[in-house]
């Protein structure tokens, strides 16, 4: 069993982004008399970046635990948003790459895992009976130390259980040295996610 968490250093940029995104529009709203359209646009920006800041803080306190049975996500909210996916129950495995630059460099990856049935970790079982209320999706970004290891384990599990791997995921996996990068590979000899 191995545990992973986002270090402060990795999240510092996200905290700064959130602060800029909240403070700039809020300052304009507070200190100048904006026309209605721009006022509501600024309010939407404040809400968006406040949400982003909360998500960053939540990530800050989240621990991901991976073992041979599956992956578990435990956050700082007492069971709410906690998730567990057994490798044998995983029904979707996606690896995405995003970049805000036009040349698509300097971006980050996101791993999305979805389980057929989710269970809250044992210690939160009472708070989340059955464990299906949270939707059963675990997402993580490549700023997480050990991201490659988690991708490798999830990919192995996906292959073992014959999950379909879409073309985007296949290409991104090949950039990490996993798979062949052939978009048809998993589609021709594997079952599709329902």
């Amino acid at each position: 069993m191995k545990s992973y968490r986002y270090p402060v250093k990795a999240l510092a940029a996200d905290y700064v982004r959130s602060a800029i995104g909240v403070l700039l529009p809020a300052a304009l709203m507070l200190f100048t008399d904006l026309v209605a359209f721009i006022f509501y646009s600024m309010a939407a920006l404040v809400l968006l970046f406040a949400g982003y800041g909360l998500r960053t803080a939540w990530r800050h306190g989240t621990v991901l635990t991976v073992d041979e049975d599956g992956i578990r996500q435990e956050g700082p909210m007492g069971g709410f948003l906690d998730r567990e996916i057994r490798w044998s129950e995983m029904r979707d495995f996606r690896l995405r790459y995003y970049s805000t630059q036009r040349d698509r460099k300097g971006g980050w990856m996101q791993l999305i895992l979805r389980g057929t049935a989710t269970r809250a970790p044992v210690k939160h079982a009472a708070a989340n009976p059955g464990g299906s209320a949270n939707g059963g999706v675990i997402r993580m970004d490549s700023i997480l130390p050990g991201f490659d290891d988690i991708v490798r384990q999830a990919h192995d599990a996906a292959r073992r259980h014959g999950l379909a791997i879409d073309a985007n995921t296949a290409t991104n996996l090949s950039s990490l040295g996993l798979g062949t990068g052939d978009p048809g590979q998993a589609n021709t000899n594997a079952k599709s996610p329902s």
Partner: protein
Amino acid sequence: MFTYFTHRVLVMIPTLLVISVITFIIIQLPPGDYLSNQMAEMIASGDRAAMEKLAFLRQEFGLDRPMLEQYAVWLGIWPGNNGFSGILQGNLGWSFEYNLPVSEIVGDRLFLSLVLNFTTMLFVYAVSFPIGVYTAVRQYSIGDHAMTFIGYIGLATPNFLLALILLFLAKKHFGVSIGGLMDEEFIGVDMSWGKFLSICEHMVVPVIVIGTSGTAGMIRRLRANLLDELQKQYVTTARAKGLKSRRLLLKYPLRMALNPFVADIGNLLPQMISGSAIVAVVMSLPTSGPMLVSALQSQDQYLAGSFLLFLAALTVFGMFISDLALAALDPRIRLGSEASK
């Protein structure tokens, strides 16, 4: 995707700020300003009070202040003579040429420009998508050759020439009055069903004229992308395994071929805006193009600045939509680039 969305929004803020700075610098670049040009004419005609009047007006409009302060006041992040009263407050400034607030002059024109460009974009995608797919799937058929021929004509014909031809044909065969975006009786009148129909009727020719070259280009790109995808190994494998043609086409190759098609929204917008300015002059369209040209010639700085800022913001927003669509459709790493860990 949420992370990407917020990062992309955050990129837009400095982009728009830099655009506003560049816009302001461009409209300030020519020597002098509208007032000094006017005053030079008055002095030449012997008006002794001209200098005093000039000083008063320059102070009134803040033209005697440093450029940075003028910019901040114009944007609305620094108080001017009337407190915070700039673009962020809905005050686009004063048009010296028309002697009216800019917002009163540009309102309808900006709206019509937006409607025209948006409709043109819909036209481009609605026409080029089915034709692009058809010409790729039926490669070297009569239909493919015919569409390719029409596409090349569309690419090669100058917009203004096409505008003149279509105006003539529309007048001769459909009785649509030449020029403008509505019948004269609706100009300056509030929106009504009749005015709406008149606008729709008059928009057909400009939309076709502005959209034709973009449509032709899009058809060529979609056809080429789809042909590339259709020749890949996974398509052959899927065919060999008995997957039906339509299902195969829709599920994989078409999705992959759509990426450059979607990414082109960002390139299409600036092309259409600059293209529509020329067409608007030829067709006497009451859009922003002709007025922008006139404002730049007369150094009517706030009027020109408002137009430029609006058009630039529209382009930035178009790029934003394009990037979001592309990120949703094609979240792949490019060979040769690396994800930062």
